[in-house]
């Protein structure tokens, strides 16, 4: 279980115990593929402050596993423990506070297109009730960190893919999360932008954040070696 010591988490950040996941079929669905297990018998632990790759081919269940860690899904079976909270036992009203300590980066960025780069990064801080004056300094600092201080007022459609992904990383880490999850963060980027995004994620890891990066690109893992969880057909390969 993760506990705080001097501002840093020590111990376990994530623990999966015999976790299975099955999506409920939509009402009236007769597709035999729907309703089958997406994940099965997953048991592993991620220490606080660690960096892990999450590897596997497309359809192996990487995104579903990340969504369980992100608390965007609850497991059908087993126990998921994140930041010391067993999600199946947690009350629904306690989940938002927990989610605010988890940053997520997606392959398709998921920025709000009608908000500027500044406002996209500011969003989690505003959700957390941060004062506008204090928030301004933090967001400006974050924009500088991702190298986009000159694009603060740009809307996402006006930015390149790499720039959008860096804004998404800025938004994901604006709350200084204890756990940072990235789902194929370089999937839509060229090699130069991919390296830049990876170096930002690794910098977060160096600062003590637990980082999990899902990818199906072995070349990326070879360039940045690290411990990995390998998924195949919803099960962990040892």
């Amino acid at each position, binding site marked *: 279980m993760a506990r705080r010591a001097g501002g840093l*988490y020590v111990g376990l950040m994530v623990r999966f115990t015999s976790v299975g996941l099955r999506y409920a079929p939509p009402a009236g669905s007769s597709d035999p593929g729907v309703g089958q297990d997406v994940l099965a018998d997953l048991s592993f632990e991620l220490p606080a402050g660690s960096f892990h790759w999450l590897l596997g081919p497309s359809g192996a269940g990487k995104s579903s596993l990340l969504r369980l860690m992100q608390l965007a899904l609850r497991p059908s079976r087993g126990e998921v423990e994140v930041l010391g909270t067993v999600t199946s036992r947690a009350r629904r009203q306690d989940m938002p506070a927990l989610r605010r300590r988890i940053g*997520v980066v997606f392959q398709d960025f998921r920025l709000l297109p009608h908000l500027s780069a500044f406002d996209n990064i500011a969003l989690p801080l505003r959700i957390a*009730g941060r004062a506008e004056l204090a928030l301004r300094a933090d967001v400006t600092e974050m924009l500088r960190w991702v190298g986009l201080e000159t694009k603060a007022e740009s809307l996402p459609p006006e930015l390149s893919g790499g720039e959008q992904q860096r804004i998404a990383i800025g938004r994901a880490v604006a709350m200084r999360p204890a756990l940072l999850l990235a789902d194929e963060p370089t999937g839509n980027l060229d090699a130069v932008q991919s390296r830049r995004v990876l170096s930002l994620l690794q910098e977060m890891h160096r600062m003590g954040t637990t980082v999990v990066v899902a990818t199906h690109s072995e070349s990326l893992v070879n360039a940045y070696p690290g411990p990995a969880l390998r998924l195949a057909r919803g099960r962990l390969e040892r």
Partner: protein
Amino acid sequence: MPGEATSTVTASRWASRRPVLRRGHGRDPLGLRQALLGPLLPAVALAMTLLAALALGGAAGAQALALRWQQGAAAAVTVQLPDMEAPRLARTLAALRELPDLVDARPMDQDRLAALLRPWLGEVPALPLPPILELRFDPLPDNPEGLALRIISVVPGATVETQGVWVARLVALAQRVRGTALAAVALVGLLAVGVVMVGIRAGLAARQDVIVILHDLGATDGDIANRFAGRVALLCGLGGLTGLLLAVPVLLAFGGLAAPLMGRMPVVRLAELPWQTLPWLLLAGLPLLMAGLGWATAELTVRSWLKRLP
């Protein structure tokens, strides 16, 4: 990244605070200004408030008419008797009390009779007034003319006035009109709730991706629902206000047309419109009611929709 020394402490402090999506600064993370809610809701609120205001005005008018007619016709039937001594009057009254469906028969108070005649005759204290009986029936007679003939057969020489029967019928009609108008207001409220709900669901469908992102970033159901509800309340309130502004001239015009029925002179000048007779307090409450209905409907609809997210 700068500031890492205190990063986790800062993060946990902010993470544990009660979250509130800040307003102001032109922030609209849900993009509600661009969603379908914009043109639909004010138009619905305008139409609903206009209908509700007309119904309320109609109800108030019907009530005023009923009250006035009731005051003017205290009895269903009045019988003017030829001059007679007290014993004969008592016998006449006893005979009339045998009439079917009669619930009350009494001589009209002389002071009240004098007051009723004063507009025509002025103050003439010495003028002898004829004895008049007031008769009340329940139910009202189906054939007032037949009843009049029957009374004359009991009291030869009497003059029977059955106009009160028709007045009583008009009063009953006015009261039913008032009840129907109030039911129409309630129906308008229900319709407004239904239409607002449809509008909000359309807005939710249009903004589903954004809502899921906010939810994943740690926004509570209350944060998201309050955003929707605030916007819906504003749009419904503005629409309601516009509807009310449109309804007031119509109500005043109707009030002007009804002035002779209320014993007033026909309206020829703007100042003579029945400004003071409109139910202003109730009317002023309509935009607020519309905003409140929109707010409550949005809160319930959005919170119920958000339950599907973990």
